[in-house]
């Protein structure tokens, strides 16, 4: 399991190529902005292949290898063979006639997670969030009425209540004048989605700037 060591000379010889490979694959992916082309498709497939391999390698290095080498071989915890066999049962899924075998690990995971979520691990954050939403509407600061914080707390509590009402109750419950509540809820939700959208764009643009910075500054040394 120790693996074959690649001569460090090969790695040292390859390392200077790394930034140029980065530039080429970045330009290859961006070439999609012109139109779909073979270079983009190659980069796209290389991305999927390397991402899948990285997931496998990470799982092997962090889970499978220590489990086999340390826990079972060194520490003699042979009970760990049972969950290994359970996990391997999922590989029956592609085989017609034996697909039912894959239900056992799946039901184990579903049951475990259902039970896990029904404990304080999920209930406690929920209660904390509810408690943090119960904000005082009349806030005093050094004995004086704090208008700005009071208005903010009122709006905050109102938006949470409206959002919950919009999603938890059927639209038909709110007819007539109560429909105003739903329309307001939709309005504040759209405003919140607008804020999320704006923040999202800012994040993606910062990624784009990072890529430009990598090409112009780190590799081409223009700035």
């Amino acid at each position: 399991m120790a693996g074959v060591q690649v001569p460090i000379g090969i790695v040292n010889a390859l390392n200077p190529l790394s930034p140029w490979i980065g530039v080429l694959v970045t330009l290859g992916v961006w070439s999609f902005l012109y139109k779909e082309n073979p270079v983009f498709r190659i980069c796209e497939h290389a991305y999927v292949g390397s991402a899948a391999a990285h997931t496998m390698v990470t799982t092997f290095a962090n889970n499978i290898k220590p489990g086999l080498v340390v826990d079972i071989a060194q520490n003699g915890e042979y009970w760990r063979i049972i969950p290994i066999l359970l996990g391997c049962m999922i590989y029956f899924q592609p085989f017609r006639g034996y697909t039912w075998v894959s239900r056992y690990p799946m039901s184990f995971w579903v049951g475990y997670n259902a039970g896990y979520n029904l404990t304080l691990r999920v209930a406690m954050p929920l209660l904390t969030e509810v408690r943090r939403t119960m904000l005082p509407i009349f806030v005093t600061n050094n004995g004086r009425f704090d208008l700005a914080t009071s208005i903010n707390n009122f709006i905050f509590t109102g938006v949470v209540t409206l959002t919950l009402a919009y999603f938890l109750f059927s639209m038909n419950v709110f007819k007539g004048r109560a429909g105003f509540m739903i329309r307001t809820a939709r309005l504040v939700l759209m405003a919140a989605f607008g804020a999320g959208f704006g923040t999202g764009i800012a994040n993606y643009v910062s990624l784009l700037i990072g890529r430009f910075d990598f090409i112009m500054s780190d590799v081409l040394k223009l700035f």
Partner: protein
Amino acid sequence: MRRTVPLTISFVAGMIMVIDGWLKIGFINNFATRYLMPSVTISVGWAAGLGALNLIRLHSRNIAQKRLNYQYSFVLLGFFFLMLTCGVFLQGNTTAPFYQFFYSSFQVNLSAAVYSLNSFYLVSACYRTFRARSWESTALLVVACFTMIGSVPMGAAMWGGFPVIQNWIVKVINDAAIRGLSIGVTLGTLSQCVRNLVGIERGHLQAGE
């Protein structure tokens, strides 16, 4: 039998976790911590290859049957096996220099490039969807504009009030709506968990039918 046993496994595994989470019963707490929790980590780890296996199967078929654009399947499988060989068979960990070369050259850069590509599409989506046709879409448009202008240094240079408004929108309106959604999602999760535990929800047992 093929349904009753999986449902029983679900119920037993879930109930052990529920009891472990709420009650102090020595042997159950011990069993959950020492055996059940590691069992999930181990079994999930060993099952992680299913996705890779499906990927290999799909792209091998593409190549074998010479389907449309099957040449790209060679690239995908080539990268997959190259990195897998470097990471698992050659050196056995993710910090090995040869694996790190492939990871930092290809995976990191491709990932950043693909996600940065999204910014162009988001801007394009803005252009097509940001129309003030109703009060709701106007609210989205105005708030998104304030948030974008307020979060860049140019916005603060234009008018000092933009970052203040952006901060207020994010801290009060956005946080409140997200909290409302979060509470709703958690309540939904809890109800779904109960349905899974008692066997009302059986979507995960549909394999092979």
